[in-house]
C-alpha cells in the first residue's frame, strides 16, 4: 500500500482527545479523566451530517483505514471496507475510528498511569461496558461537533456498540450496522471467554493484574487465550482447507514438539499477539462481551428493549460463523421486526467463520455499499464519484502467514 493507491485514505494520523469530565461507569465506579485516541478519514460536511463511527471488536484499534507514513505496512484493520470509492466511501463520508477506554492502543486503559497514584492502573482499572464505551464515544462526537451520526458500524463486539448507540442515543444515530454480532452472548461464548481469562490470570507473570510493576508480561497466558480465540474465529472447514493435517516435517516425531502446521500457525499467532496486546485489556474486553445484554433491563424482552431505537438497522451474519452464528443475528432481527424497526438482514455464505466480517467478500461489501449509498441519498451527500470498486487481491491474514513462512 502506498500514497499512490487511489483507493486508500492514505497516511493516517492518530489524534488524541482528553476528557476531564468524569465518566460514571456502569460498574458504579468513576473514571475521573481519560483520553481517547482516534483517527478520521474523509471530510466532515458543512451540516456535519456525514459522520460514520467505526467501533472495534476485542483486539481492534482506532487505526481502521490507511497506513502510517513511518510504517506503511501497518494498514488499518478495516481498510478493505473504508476508503475513496470503497463500500464506506470516504469521498462522501467522514469516518471516525476510536480506541475504546480500557484498550491498549493509546486510549486510557489498564497500562495507563493513574494520576491519583502515579502508577499504572493495572488491576485497579475498572471494568467497563459497551454502554460506557458508547457514552465516551458520544463525548468524542461532541468534541468533533457531530450532533448526529449518519451511522455506526462494527463487527462482533463492535456490532454490539453500534446497537447500543441506537438505545443510549436514539436521536444521535441514523443507522446501525450490526455485523457478526449477537444481542447477548450465549453460554458457550461466555465459557470460551472464561477459559481465555483463566489462561491469563493463572500465568505467574500476571501478578494479579499488576504485572507492569513487576516488569513482567503474562505472555504465556495471553498467547493461550489468543490461540483459543483464534480457533473459534475460524470455521472448521477453513482450518481443514488451509492446514489439513500437514506436518512440518516428513515424519511423525512421537514427541510434543510442534508437528502439525496448525500448531505452528496458532503458536505463531499467539506469540505475535502476546507481544503487542495487553493482558488486562483482553480480560476487560471479554467481560464487556459477557455483560452486554440490552434486554436484561426489560425482563429479557429484547423487542421491548429495542423500542427506544429510531435508527435503521443493517444486520449481517456469516453462515460459517459458529462463534456468533446466524441464529444469534436472527434473534436480533426478530426483535427488531417485532419492534417495527427498519431493518435489513443478510446471511452471507462466506467460508471463513467469524473472521469473515473483517475479510474482503464481494457479496458482503456490495451490500454494505448499497446500504451506505441509501444513507448518502438520505442525507444528501450525492452519488459515488465512480462505480464501486471491490477490494481484490488483498492479503488475508492466513495467506500472509503462509508467505511469511515460505508457503503453507
Amino acid at each position, binding site marked *: 500500500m502506498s500514497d499512490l493507491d487511489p483507493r486508500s485514505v492514505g497516511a493516517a494520523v492518530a489524534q488524541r482527545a482528553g476528557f476531564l469530565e468524569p465518566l460514571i461507569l456502569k460498574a458504579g465506579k468513576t473514571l475521573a479523566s481519560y483520553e481517547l485516541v482516534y483517527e478520521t478519514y474523509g471530510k466532515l460536511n458543512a451540516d456535519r451530517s456525514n459522520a460514520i463511527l467505526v467501533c472495534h471488536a476485542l483486539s481492534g484499534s482506532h487505526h481502521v483505514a490507511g497506513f502510517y507514513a513511518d510504517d506503511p505496512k501497518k494498514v488499518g484493520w478495516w481498510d478493505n471496507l473504508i476508503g475513496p470509492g470503497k463500500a464506506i466511501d470516504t469521498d462522501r463520508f467522514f469516518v471516525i475510528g476510536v480506541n475504546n477506554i480500557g484498550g491498549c492502543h493509546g486510549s486510557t486503559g489498564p497500562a495507563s498511569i493513574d494520576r491519583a497514584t502515579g502508577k499504572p492502573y493495572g488491576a485497579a482499572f475498572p471494568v467497563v461496558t459497551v454502554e460506557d464505551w458508547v457514552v465516551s464515544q458520544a463525548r468524542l462526537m461532541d468534541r468533533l461537533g457531530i450532533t448526529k451520526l449518519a451511522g455506526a458500524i462494527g463487527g462482533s463486539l463492535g456490532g454490539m456498540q453500534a446497537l447500543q448507540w441506537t438505545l443510549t442515543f436514539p436521536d444521535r444515530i441514523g443507522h446501525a450496522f450490526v455485523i457478526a454480532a449477537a444481542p447477548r452472548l450465549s453460554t458457550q461464548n461466555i465459557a470460551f471467554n472464561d477459559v481465555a481469562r483463566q489462561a491469563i490470570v493463572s500465568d505467574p507473570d500476571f501478578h494479579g493484574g499488576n504485572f507492569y510493576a513487576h516488569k513482567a508480561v503474562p505472555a504465556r497466558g495471553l498467547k493461550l487465550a489468543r490461540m483459543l480465540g483464534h480457533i473459534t474465529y475460524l470455521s472448521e472447514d477453513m482450518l481443514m482447507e488451509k492446514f489439513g493435517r500437514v506436518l512440518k516435517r516428513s515424519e511423525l516425531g512421537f514427541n510434543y514438539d510442534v508437528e502439525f502446521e496448525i500448531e505452528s500457525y496458532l503458536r505463531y499467532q499467539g506469540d505475535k499477539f502476546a507481544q503487542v496486546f495487553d493482558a488486562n485489556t483482553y480480560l476487560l474486553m471479554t467481560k464487556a462481551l459477557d455483560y452486554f445484554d440490552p434486554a436484561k433491563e426489560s425482563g429479557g424482552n429484547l423487542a421491548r428493549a429495542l423500542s427506544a431505537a429510531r435508527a435503521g438497522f443493517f444486520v449481517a451474519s456469516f453462515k460459517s460463523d459458529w462463534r456468533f452464528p446466524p441464529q444469534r443475528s436472527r434473534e436480533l*432481527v426478530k426483535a427488531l*421486526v417485532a419492534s417495527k424497526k427498519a431493518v*435489513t438482514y443478510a*446471511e452471507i*455464505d462466506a467460508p471463513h467463520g467469524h473472521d469473515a466480517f473483517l475479510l474482503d467478500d464481494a457479496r458482503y461489501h*456490495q451490500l454494505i455499499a*448499497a446500504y451506505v449509498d*441509501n444513507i448518502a441519498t438520505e442525507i444528501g451527500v450525492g452519488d459515488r464519484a465512480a462505480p464501486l470498486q471491490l477490494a481484490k487481491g488483498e492479503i488475508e491474514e492466513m495467506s500472509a502467514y503462509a508467505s511469511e513462512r515460505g508457503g503453507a
Partner: protein
Amino acid sequence: MQRYDYDLIASWIPERSRVLDLGCGDGVLMAGLAATNAAVGYGIEIDDGNVLASVKNGVNVLQTDIESGLASFEDNSFDFVILSQTLQAMRNAESVLNEMLRVGREGIVTFPNFGYWRHRLDILRGRMPESKALPYKWYDTPNIHLCTVKDFEDLCVTVGAEILDERVLHEGRTVSILPNLLGSLGVFRFRRKP
C-alpha cells in the same frame, strides 16, 4: 418479466399498511408500495443477488427462507402478506399459506394459471407447457407446485381461507369470461375465515 399483478396488488393496499412481501425478488413491488401507498414493512428473499437488488431499491429486505423463516413473525403482525408468483416454487405450499394467514390480517397470492388454454394445449399435444407465464423447461424450473385457478380455490377451502377478491389476468387485463381457461395469472386476496 412484466409483473402484471403489481398494479392490482397496489390497488388493494390502503395507505400506510404494514406489508410483508414473501419472495420479494428485486424489491420493486415493496419499493412501489412504499412510494405510492406509504406502505411500510419488509421483503423476504433468499437469493443473494435479489437481496442486493432489494437493498439498492431501498427495501428493508430480510434474507430468510420463506418455508422456515416465517415462524419468527408474530401473529397478525402485518396488514398484508404478499406471495407474488412464488407459491408455485414452494415445497410446502399449504403450510406457507397457513403461515400467511397467521402472520397477516389478509393475504395476497398470485400464481401462473396452469389451466390457461395454451398450457392445456401443450399438454394435449403431449408436451409440458411453456409460455410467457411459465418460461422454463420442465427439467430446469423452480416451479414444483403448479396449480389452476380452481385448484387454488380448493386450497383456500382446505386451509380455511375466505376469498375476498379473485381475479384472473392476462397481460394485465382482467379476464371475466372463462377465466380459468383464458387467464394466465391468478390473483387472490383472502383472510382467515372469521
